[in-house]
């Protein structure tokens, strides 16, 4: 909880001291009189004292009031409740499919022991690693592919590369070589001797992937028109809705911290420690 509050503080601090904080697009409107511009500036000055701004925000947060979105003219809490399920569904599907495909490719590469397969998957994954999520989203839109699968394509290369390297190094461990020498089948070696060794690292990667998926959700939702919190963040950024963005940053920080803490707890569980 302390980490989340500090995260929110750091995020709000960065926003507060970013160049242009407190300015409003409306100030550029030549039709407005100087009195109107002065009144807009006075309204924005409320947020200028950083400590006051942040602690007032925290006070409201404790009461469950996340404030009002300036651009969408709706309570932030309501917006989050409406949008979060779509993102959660997208992230869950992306993580599940990305992990399944990534680990399956890695196992196939290890089990087949064929150089061509390693090169082909390496090339495919290498190209995917060179494409930002936003470009992948545009390519998916151009090719009319289902956007729901896009996060899996973002997660896949990271999972594949990490799990392949882990499996290769574990396959060379003495106890695995001994098991093979004793005549154990490949699948039995994989499930009984290799997987238990790499399980803690896989759990750690799962925690990191949650954060990657939520971050990638911004371009994916914005460009594929999925009404989740990623699209909300993009709209808020274009509309310079800082209060909504600070809330979203806090929410994603919370999710990241929960994801990492859960993976830490899992890593410390007795079954994995024995492994």
């Amino acid at each position: 909880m302390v980490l989340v509050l500090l995260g929110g503080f750091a995020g709000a601090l960065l926003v507060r001291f970013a160049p242009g904080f407190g300015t409003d697009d409306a100030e550029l409107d030549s039709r407005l009189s100087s009195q109107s511009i002065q009144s807009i500036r006075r309204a924005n000055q409320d947020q200028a004292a950083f400590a006051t701004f942040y602690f007032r925000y925290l006070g409201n947060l404790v009461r469950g009031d996340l404030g009002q979105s300036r651009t969408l003219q709706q309570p932030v809490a309501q917006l989050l409740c409406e949008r979060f399920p779509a993102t959660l569904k997208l992230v869950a599907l992306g993580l599940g499919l990305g992990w399944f495909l990534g680990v399956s490719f890695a196992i196939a590469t290890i089990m087949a022991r064929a150089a061509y397969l390693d090169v082909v998957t390496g090339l495919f994954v290498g190209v995917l690693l060179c494409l930002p999520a936003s470009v992948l989203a545009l390519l998916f839109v151009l090719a009319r592919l289902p956007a729901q699968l896009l996060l899996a394509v973002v997660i896949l290369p990271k999972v594949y590369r990490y799990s392949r390297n882990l499996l290769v190094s574990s396959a060379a461990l003495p106890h695995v070589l001994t098991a093979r020498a004793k005549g154990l089948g490949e699948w039995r070696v994989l499930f009984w001797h290799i997987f238990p060794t790499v399980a803690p690292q896989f759990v750690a990667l799962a925690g990191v992937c949650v954060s990657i998926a939520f971050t990638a959700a911004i371009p994916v939702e914005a460009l594929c028109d999925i009404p989740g919190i990623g699209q909300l963040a993009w709209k808020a950024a274009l509309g310079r809705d800082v209060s909504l963005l600070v809330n979203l940053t806090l929410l994603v920080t919370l999710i990241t911290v929960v994801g990492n803490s859960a993976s830490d707890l899992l890593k410390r569980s007795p079954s994995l420690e024995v492994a």
Partner: protein
Amino acid sequence: MKVLRALAVAMLMIVAAASLFPQLITGASYARQFRELPDSPPSRQHWLGTDDLGRDRLSRLLYGTRVSLLLAPAAALLATLLAALIGGIAGFEGGRTEKVVMGATDLFLSLPWLFLLITVRAAMPLNVSPGASVMITFALLGCLGWAGAARVICSAARSVAGADFILLARASGDGGFRLLWRHVLPNLRPIVLAQFWLSVPAFILTEANLGVLGLGVSEPLPSWGSLLKDLGTFDGISASVWQFAPLLLFVLVVSSFHLVLTSEELPA
């Protein structure tokens, strides 16, 4: 692997040279509009055709490459220097200093990068000049991207600080800053360099993400982000092949940066 590495270095050098001297390849400026030729196909005058505003695509690609190739390494340098300073001191000092600094680093790592970047970018005034926008975008990347590298450098500094030659240097009367500067930092150089090379493609990818979302470098200054954004205006994947030139060059350059690192230097 050595051949691939040499090819990657050659590729980067060719692209860097072409982007530093674009006037040798194309005479047009990136902002000049040929109003009588909007959306034209490749010709002898415009090798990659023109965009919907009649601007030479090749010229914009080369200038955009220059922006990304000059500023991503600059941002990576800033991030790596911060990481070396913070991680190096934390690892060298150890104890409570390390705990506090690494706690702050963990906090920074748990912040969602892209959310923070778009938040800070959103707060920038609308009338900011394209030059200032590009500087601010990459400066932000540099200021926010040090945490991961600092963790790695801290761990390396800790192991160097415990080495026998450091003990010997201490026994010879070296201490404090001199010890850090003369003995610890030179031994961290390979790790710092690897972190720098890892940061460059990461920053190029992040700038591209921001640019495609319309939150990167302002028009008319091109960058890879703004050039890749044009993919969204195509009719379909069957659009003319030359229009995918920025994407092809982008993938080639980013993969070259990945290939420059040896497998030992790459993270698992």
